[in-house]
């Protein structure tokens, strides 16, 4: 195995672990239920919300880096991330570049606009929950592609 493929395998294994943490955080947020009044939340519940948005953001960030690594491995243009997304769309790893960007917009908004408005915050977290399986699907498709193309074994969770 080449050094770059070895690095890619490590990235995917790391992502598999991150995915487990993200799913755990998503479950914790489901347990909190609807957000009516932020002041009613316990310290642990605030921690769960914070962990979820951070893990969501980091998972997409690292997934993007792994996709870029695959594009480089395939000698594609990686000067702009838009080119990487187009390539991933052609590989059917992602459904559309726009959906990926929408998820990025969502996480930027939830991190930037973290506020006390419970109605708006509820909408953010509901949308984040809806996008977790989408990110998981992208990751699964990337792993499957790497398995087929390079024979990479990501191990449990991948």
């Amino acid at each position: 195995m080449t050094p770059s493929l070895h690095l890619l395998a490590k990235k995917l294994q790391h992502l598999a672990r991150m995915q487990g943490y993200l799913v755990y955080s998503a479950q914790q947020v489901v347990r909190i239920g609807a957000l009516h009044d932020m002041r009613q939340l316990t310290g642990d519940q605030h921690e769960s919300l914070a962990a979820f948005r951070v893990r969501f953001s980091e998972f997409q960030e690292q997934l993007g880096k792994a996709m870029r690594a695959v594009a480089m491995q395939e000698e594609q243009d990686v000067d702009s991330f838009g080119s990487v997304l187009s390539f991933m769309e052609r590989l059917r790893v992602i459904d559309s570049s726009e959906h990926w960007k929408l998820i990025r917009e969502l996480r930027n908004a939830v991190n930037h606009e973290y506020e006390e408005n419970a109605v708006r915050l509820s909408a953010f977290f509901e949308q984040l929950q809806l996008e977790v399986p989408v990110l998981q699907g992208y990751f699964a498709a990337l792993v499957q592609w790497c398995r087929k193309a390079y024979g990479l074994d990501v191990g449990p969770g991948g």
Partner: protein
Amino acid sequence: MQRMQPSQPTASIARLSYPQLTAVRSCLRRDLGEGARAWLFGSRVDLQRRGGDVDLYVETPRPTSLRDELLCKLHLKEALDLPVDLILAQAGSQTPIGTIAKSTGLEL
């Protein structure tokens, strides 16, 4: 409040070009519907300043889903290649930012 006329040379009243303003209106119409009313405000209507985000305050007849709001913001950023701050409100709502946008901004 100023209101932009179709034939008005906008370079003198807003620091966005006519094609950029047309792109903004096109995105808003497509993503938020015909009934949306928008005001450009903040640094982009201050002729003494340079650069800056594109601040848009938009009122819609009906509540907008978070997904549609984010899509609209994404389309605006891509169309303008500039940072965009998009604030949505339902028509008739009274907010401090809405009052500022309407009184100091340019209705598109």
